[in-house]
Structure formats: C-alpha cells, structure tokens
C-alpha cells in the first residue's frame, strides 16, 4: 500500500518528480546508476521531450572515466549547450585537456563536441583547437578538424579569413580520409576561392577513387564547377569548325589562311585526367556517386562521350523508389536535349502497374521526350495500355503525352487525333475531360478539319461536368463559331440556362462565347448575349463582374466606349498562336544536374552557379606543382598493385607526370616492388 501511494505522488509531481529522480541518480557514486540515468535522458531527447533543466546535473559528469557515460554526456551537451551557455562553459576545460590525449579517438571526439556546442564565447578556443588539430598526426583528427571548420564558420562568419588558411593547409593533405571533408568545408566557407584548388587539382583527381563514397560526391561536384572555369568548351569548336569549312569551301586560298586562324581544339590534359579518373566511379554501388559522375560527364565531357553514363543511370532505376524518382527527373532533363543518349534504353522506361504514380508520370515524360518517327508507333501502342490504366491520374497524363507526340511528330497527328476522339466516349470523366483539353490544343495547331470534331464535342457538353473540359469545349465553339453556325447559338442558349450553376471557369467562357457570337451572328444571339451579360453583371465573383463590364463596353458601343469597340471583332477573333505542348523539364537544364535546385526547379539556398566555359582558358600552368613528388595512388596500394607517379620538369618548364605500374608481391610479410614494365 505505501508503495502505491509513493508512486501516485510521483505521478502527481509530473515530469519534475521524475527528473528529481534522475538528478539523484546522476549524483550517485555508482557509474551504473549514472549510466542508467543518462540512458533515460537520451531516451527523452530522442522523443523530443525537454530535458534542459537537468543540465547542471549532467554537465558534472563530462569528465567521467566511463566512456559510455562520457559519450552520452556529449550527446546531451550538443543538444542543449546552446540554450545553457553559461553552464556549458564548465565543460570546456575537460575538452581542452582531452584535446591533448594520446588516444586519437578521444582527441577527435573532444574536438567534435567542443566545436558542436555553439557557444559564441568560446570561438577563440575553437579556432585554436582547429588550428592544432589540422596538423595532428592522425588523419582521423584532421578529418574532424575539417568538419569543425564549417561549424565554427556558421557560428561566427567573421573567422572566415583564418578558417580559409586552415582550409588551404588541409587541402594539401594527402590522406584520403581528409579530402572529402575539407572540400566540403571549402564549398561552405569559400567556394569562390578557386585559386586554392589549382595546386591540388591533380592530386584530388588521383586520390578520388580511394576517397570514401560521400567525399567522392562532394569532390566531384566541386571539380565540375572548377573545370567549367578553367577549361575551354569541348562542344563549341566542333560546330565552329563545321561552319568555317562550309563557308570557305570554294575558296582554296582562304582555306589555307583559315587553317592558320582556326584554333584546333585539343583537350587540356587536366580536363582529360578528370574525365578519365571519374569514369570508373560509374560502377560505384552508391547511387549518389554514380549520379555525380553522370552530371560531371553531362557538363564537362565532349558530347560524343557523355553517352557512357546512360547505362549506369538506367541501372539505378532498379533501386528504391526515392532513388528512381531523382534519377528519372535528371534523365527527363537530359533526354530533352540529347535524345540519342537514352533511345537504346527506351523499354527500360516502360511503366509497370505497380509503380507509384509519381514514378509512372516521370517515365511517361521520358518516353514522350524520346518519341521520334521511328519508335512512335510502338510507343503509341504502349500508351494505349496506359490510357486504360486504373490509375486515372496517370491515364490523364498519358493523354497529354499523346497530345505532345501528336504536335511534335506530324506523321502521327491524325492518328493521335482520331484516337483522342475515340476516348471522348470513354466512361471515365477524367479521361474524357483530359481528352477534350488536349484535342482543343491540337485543333488550334491544325486549323484544317474541325467541323466534325467540334460538333461531336458540342454534343458531349450535356454530359461532361468537369469544368476545364466544359470551358475548353465552349472556347472551341466560340473560336470556330463561323464553322459551326447552326450549333453555336444553340450551345449558347443551353449554357445561358445553366449559367448560374456553372463553375467560374465555365462562366468566363460562356461570356466569351456570347461575345464572339454577338460579333459574328448578332441577329440570332443579341438577346441571348445580353441576358448572359446581365447574369454576369450580378455574379458573386468580381472576376466575372469585371469581365462582363469589359466585354459589354467592347461589343455594345455607346458614347463612352470610345474607339476601341470598332476593333472588337479583331480583338476577339484574332488569329491566336497555337499553344506549345512542352515538357515541364524544358527549362530545368539551367540548374546543375543532380542538385537539389534541379529537383525543386528553383534556387535552393547555397546553390552554386555553374559558370559558362571561358572563351580562352586561364593559364594551365597554375596547376603545376613545383616540387618533384611521388604520389602513391592508394587504390593501387591496397590492391597490391602500386602505381608510382613520377613528375619532373622537362625542358620547356612543364611538369610532366609519368606513371609506372609496379607489382607488389607479398613475400614473408614484407612488400617487395617489382616493376611490371
């Protein structure tokens, strides 16, 4: 009984009671009690419960000998130090001591926590710690130093100059462990300081294959930007050459002269180095790495070489739906500009009924982009299956796709139009509505034979309820009212009756139809139109009242309306440009592929613009490294084939890289190098 009462009172005390209990455990002399308490506190943090009031009790344990307690205290500090800055300062001296610990793991984690607690007053201490850690013997500590740079920068941007110095130093680091992290820091702190990369460019290219996968992604993105500022375009010259040849075809002398003027394009060896060293990464198991290489080839490789990435991108489509989603978006953008890249993989984009809708629509988008005279009949047959899909949203998207194919490929326009007209008798309303909208667009591009189709659609008006479709039919009848002189006034009569119950979109089109008929056939429709205008005048929506007033002034001349009403007919029945049926991915290529901005189709914060190729390449000598050195390619080391790079200065003053593959044989535990060549 007494126990029950005790627990009751505890509950009544609410959270405080429990925390009291935790505080006692943290004060206890036993590690096990402390550990228990810390575990419960971490559980609270994980659930998002506020545990900040325990700060004083927790921070005392920062110097605990028990490594797990210490770790959990670190977790706690990183979460709450920002809120309890004064108390957090109590822990600093412990970290400062730990920074000098002989154990590299302890040094590294001390630096991690110290730099993560976001207390502005310790900025100088952090700066000092980072500087020291950046010359630590352990590459793991140096990696953590690179991470700390970004943390300090976001805490106090005024440290930028000093931090750049550290970045410059760490960029020179030869460890593959550090490379990814320091490039990340570079991207956050000083992405515009391209000059820091020059001397490290070749090293980064050579190390790339051995850097961990996440670092690879960051480095590849950075090198893409770098290359676009340093090398000349491998694309333009081909075109220029072609034009020049044509131009001077007949003139032999000129041609001779031209040859001297014309700059033949040779790719900078450094440009080639980057392309060569990233290519094997297309076989990475990490989708982000594959995508990074793909975008690098897209933005940097000669057009003839970019094709090698398609196979790998198509492979990624086997992955999870999230990966598929991003990859398909990028393929959609690519397939607009360079159809050829993905044409051989057309069937990989066929839709399965089990795909989620967003994947289906993206695949459809790509199929539409890839459509050409050769494959259109196969595609249309495939589309027929999609139109019947139970997923109506997808069926509607397919109809739009058919419409786009019809406008892009003139051979099939009639076939498509007929097919769409057949769909008008479909049972599903969304399908019919979408067909109407697409037919409307198609008829506009094809002003030859509408009569029959328009009549057919006028008949449908009684049954269709989807506003967009009704509005489209009304617009069509109005626009081509002179071709269906008997039907148009009757449609106006019917819709005048139903005016008050229509959607705003439809009301606007009824007004529109009235106005057009008034101008062409005022004898029959004058009264009807005035009736509709009167209804519109008192409508609830001010858009409709506004439109009504506007139309009345234009078509019914009075003393106030001025000169404009003379041109009413020209205004309403002007030849309208046909709508362009375009891919929504058309304008996305101004974002670098594979970026968040590309996916969102809007600039994300921190997006770094990819610059245009320079007309003249900046001096390539900046990338030369003065000292002769030997860079060991680590991939080869760990795989027992050593590749030793020798570089020396040749007579022209250029540094030349030589690579000699060496075979390392493991004999009795020691490595012996045997030249293979």
């Amino acid at each position: 009984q007494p126990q029950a009462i005790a627990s009751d009172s505890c509950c009544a005390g609410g959270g405080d009671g429990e925390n009291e209990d935790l505080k006692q455990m943290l004060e206890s002399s036993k590690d096990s009690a402390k550990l228990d308490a810390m575990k419960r506190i971490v559980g609270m943090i994980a659930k998002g419960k506020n545990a900040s009031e325990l700060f004083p009790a927790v921070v005392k344990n920062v110097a605990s000998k028990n490594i797990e307690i210490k770790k959990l205290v670190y977790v706690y500090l990183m979460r709450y130090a920002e809120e309890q800055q004064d108390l957090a300062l109590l822990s600093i001296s412990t970290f400062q001591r730990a920074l000098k610990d002989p154990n590299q793991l302890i040094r590294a984690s001390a630096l991690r926590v110290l730099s993560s607690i976001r207390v502005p007053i310790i900025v100088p201490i952090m700066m000092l710690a980072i500087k020291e850690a950046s010359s630590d013997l352990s590459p793991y500590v140096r990696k953590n130093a690179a991470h700390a740079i970004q943390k300090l920068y976001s805490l106090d941007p005024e440290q930028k100059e000093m931090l750049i110095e550290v970045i410059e130093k760490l960029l020179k680091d030869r460890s593959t462990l550090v490379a990814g992290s320091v490039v990340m820091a570079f991207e956050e702190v000083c992405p515009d300081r391209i000059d820091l990369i020059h001397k490290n460019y070749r090293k980064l290219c050579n190390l790339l294959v051995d850097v961990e996968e996440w670092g690879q992604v960051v480095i590849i993105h950075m090198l893409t930007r770098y290359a676009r500022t340093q090398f000349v375009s491998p694309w333009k010259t081909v075109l220029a050459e072609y034009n020049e040849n044509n131009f001077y075809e007949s003139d032999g002398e000129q041609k001779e002269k031209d040859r001297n003027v014309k700059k033949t394009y040779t790719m900078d060896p450094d440009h080639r180095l980057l392309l060569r060293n990233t290519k094997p990464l297309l076989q990475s198991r990490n989708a982000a790495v594959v995508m990074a290489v793909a975008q690098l080839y897209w933005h940097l490789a000669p057009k003839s070489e970019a094709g090698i990435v398609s196979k790998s991108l198509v492979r990624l489509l086997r992955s999870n739906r999230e990966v598929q989603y991003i990859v398909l978006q990028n393929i959609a953008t690519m397939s607009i500009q360079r159809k050829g890249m993905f044409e051989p993989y057309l069937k990989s984009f066929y839709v399965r009924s089990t795909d989620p809708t967003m994947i289906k629509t993206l695949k459809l988008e790509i199929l539409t982009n890839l459509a050409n005279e050769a494959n259109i009949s196969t595609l249309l047959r495939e589309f027929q299956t999609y139109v019947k899909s139970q997923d109506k949203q997808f069926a509607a998207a397919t109809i739009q796709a058919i419409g786009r194919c019809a406008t892009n490929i003139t051979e099939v326009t009639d076939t498509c139009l007929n097919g769409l007209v057949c769909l008008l008798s479909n049972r599903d309303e969304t399908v019919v509505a979408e067909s109407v909208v697409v037919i409307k667009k198609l008829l506009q591009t094809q002003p030859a034979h509408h009569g029959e189709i328009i009549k057919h659609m006028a008949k449908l008006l009684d049954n269709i309820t989807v506003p967009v479709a009704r509005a489209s039919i009304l617009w069509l009848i109005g626009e081509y009212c002179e071709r269906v002189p008997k039907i148009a006034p009757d449609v106006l009569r019917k819709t005048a009756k139903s005016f008050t119950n229509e959607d705003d979109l439809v009301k606007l089109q009824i007004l529109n139809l009235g106005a057009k008929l008034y101008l062409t056939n005022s004898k029959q429709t004058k009264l009807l139109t005035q009736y509709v205008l009167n209804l519109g005048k008192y409508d609830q929506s001010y858009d409709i009242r506004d439109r009504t007033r506007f139309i009345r002034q234009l078509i019914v001349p009075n003393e106030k309306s001025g000169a404009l009403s003379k041109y009413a007919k020209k205004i309403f029945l002007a030849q309208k440009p046909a709508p362009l049926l375009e891919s929504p991915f058309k304008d996305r290529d101004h974002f670098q592929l594979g970026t968040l901005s590309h996916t969102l189709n809007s600039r994300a914060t921190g997006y770094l613009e990819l610059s245009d190729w320079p007309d003249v390449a900046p001096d390539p000598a900046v990338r030369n490294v003065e000292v002769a050195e030997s860079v060991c390619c680590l991939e080869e080391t760990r795989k027992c084939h050593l590749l030793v790079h020798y570089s020396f200065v040749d007579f022209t003053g250029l540094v030349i890289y030589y690579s000699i593959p060496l075979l390392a044989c493991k004999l009795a535990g020691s490595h012996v190098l045997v030249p293979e060549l």
Partner: protein
Amino acid sequence: MIHSLFLINASGDIFLEKHWKSAVSRSVCDYFFEAQERASEAENVPPVIPTPHHCLLSVYRHKIFFVAVIQSEVPPLFVIEFLHRVVDTFQDYFGVCSEVMIKDNVVVVYEVLEEMLDNGFPLATESNILKELIKPPTILRTVVNTITGSTNVGDQLPTGQLSVVPWRRTGVKYTNNEAYFDVIEEIDAIIDKSGSTITAEIQGVIDACVKLTGMPDLTLSFMNPRLLDDVSFHPCVRFKRWESERILSFIPPDGNFRLLSYHVSAQNLVAIPVYVKHNISFRDSSSLGRFEITVGPKQTMGKTIEGVMVTSQMPKGVLNMSLTPSQGTHIFDPVTKLLSWDVGKINPQKLPSLKGSMNLQAGTSKPDENPTINLQFKIQQLAISGLKVNRLDMYGEKYKPFKGIKYMTKAGKFQVRT
C-alpha cells in the same frame, strides 16, 4: 548538410528525432504530414518536399518514414542514399528495423547516429567500423556489462577507419574458414496480352558470406564474363583488374556483403521460364464475370519452378470472387480488391489453374482494363542468364577455406498484361 532526422511511423507519430546542428522544431514535419495526406498511399508521398525554410527528404522503409531536414543545396541522392544506409545499419544491428526495435534500443540508435554523421556530413558508414565503435546489443553482452561494468562503446579508433581497406577489421579469426557466394538473378519482364514479351531484362547480384581468418585476398573468375553488360561493385573490388582481365579481385569484408550487382543486356534474348494462360472477361449486361488463369513452365532448363505466387489488383467494380484452384490457396480481399494465389510448385504434368467467376457491382459499367497479373517464382540451381563462376582462389593466407557457390533465379518485377 543533413540538419535533423525525424522518424515517423505509419500513424503519423514522430517517435524519434535527432539533430546534428541547432535543433529544428518538430513543427517542420507538418509540411510532411500535409503531403502524406494528399498522397493516397505511403509510397506516393514525394521524396522531396520543399517548405519555406527547409527541404524535407524522406525514404519509406519498413513502414517507417525517415525524414531528413535540409537547409541548403545538397545533392538529393546523397541524402537519400545516406538514409537508406541508416536503415541498412539498423537492420544489421538489430536484425529487423521496426519501430519497436528502434524504441527498445534508442540509446544504441542514438550513439550510432551520432557516429554516422558529424555536422550533417557522413563520418562512419561502414558497418564494421561502426560495430567496433558501438557494439551491437546482445543478451550475453548486456549480462556481461552489468556484471563487469564494461560498456558497449569502444574506446579505440577502429583500425578500419585509418586503413587502406576500411571495410575489413584486423585480427579476424575463425576455426572453420568458409566463403559462400550466392548468384541470384531476377527477371524483370512485361508480357503482353498475347503472351509475347514486351520487355525483359535480367538483373543479378552476387551476395557473399565470407568468414575467413586474417587478410585473405580472393579472386573470382567467370566462365563467360562477357555476359555482364553493366556492373557495380562493392568498394573492395579492384576496378583495374576487372577492366583488364574481367576477374574480380578483392580483400573481402568480414561477414555478409553484396560483392557485385550486374545487368545482362537487353540485347541478349532473355529466356522466360513461365507462361500464364488467362481468360478474364467482364460482360456489359450481366453482373458476373469469368476468371480463369493457368500457369505453366516454358524455358526452365529442366529445373522445377517453385514458390510461385500470383497476385492481381482487381478493378474497383469487383465485389467478390468465387474461385477454385487446382492446387495451393487463394485469397481475395474485397476491401483492397487484391487477389493473391499461393501456387507453390509447378508440376508440368498437371498445370495449376484457378477458375471461377467474379461478382460485379450491379449497375456499374464494365471496367476498361483487365487486371495485370504479377508473378513471383523461384528456380533453384539455375542462373537464367547462363552466367557461371569458373573458380575462386585465395591468396595471402595459408589455410584451405571451404568454398561454396549457389545459383538461383527469381522473378523480379514480372507482369503479365491481360
């Protein structure tokens, strides 16, 4: 890069949150819930959701949404791939990745997440490194820890983190040294109404389970490596060796890992091992429809087809189905309209069939489309592409390991349109 992580279960509760920079309020997830509501099914929730100040990137696995909060430009695949890696790690640690498991092991989960990211940038994602930093919980270890007062947290930097073979720890010891390789191929296919193949591809993987002492250096060669059109490797595989000799040469990680995934080009004709004969018809006038399917073997190279499972999403108008299978069991769920038929083995002498009628909702018109049939099956001891491992050699260690290779063919996304 990655600011925060929220774990959300199927009923929309945030049951875990972790921040790597300043804490982001949970209210940011409201945008996610909105998107979730708009999408009818979990898998239709867009993986990238923009909000005014952040961007939410999510993956959906094991009925849990892993939602990462991003504040600035980052390659979206970077985040998505990382989130998948997190799920894989949890699975590796706890056997299953479920809400209950995560809640029960919240401290280990937190410690692991802490090691995986620093300031939002991946720090250690190799599971063998993580396992040395934070040991996976086992009952034995929990008992030992309570008695001796030792902890689950390692106090030394894992050797892998600094080594040139970060995926393998040093000092591995086994009494039985064994290496098993499973060649598993999946057929993705779309078969049209008349039974002809619209598209078919083979995707294969080689999964390995290697338990070898020391630092073994393995090479695996194929009889017909030309078949492999497109490959992706575990980081341990030496690219150069593959490029020049078409041999897989590697120092393996310890334990289970995926050595290779490959694609057999669409140019090669793909043997389709099964066929489906179907007769599904709805009539306009009556509220009854006919349903009949038969499954049979086609090109199986003399092997038995097992584990056959037929599923089909019936149109909304179907109220109920009364069917009789010649073998196996079938279920029709009248709510989700999903028909599934667990067939089992196919006996070529007596082909399994499922026949009967469908009750349609009275008054509605017949559906436009016949349902698509999805097929699953397994064929043991056969790689349908014909890929064959030639030999496996070990260098660098003196003992004789036990080696084993197994082949299997499965249906991937195998659909029959009717």
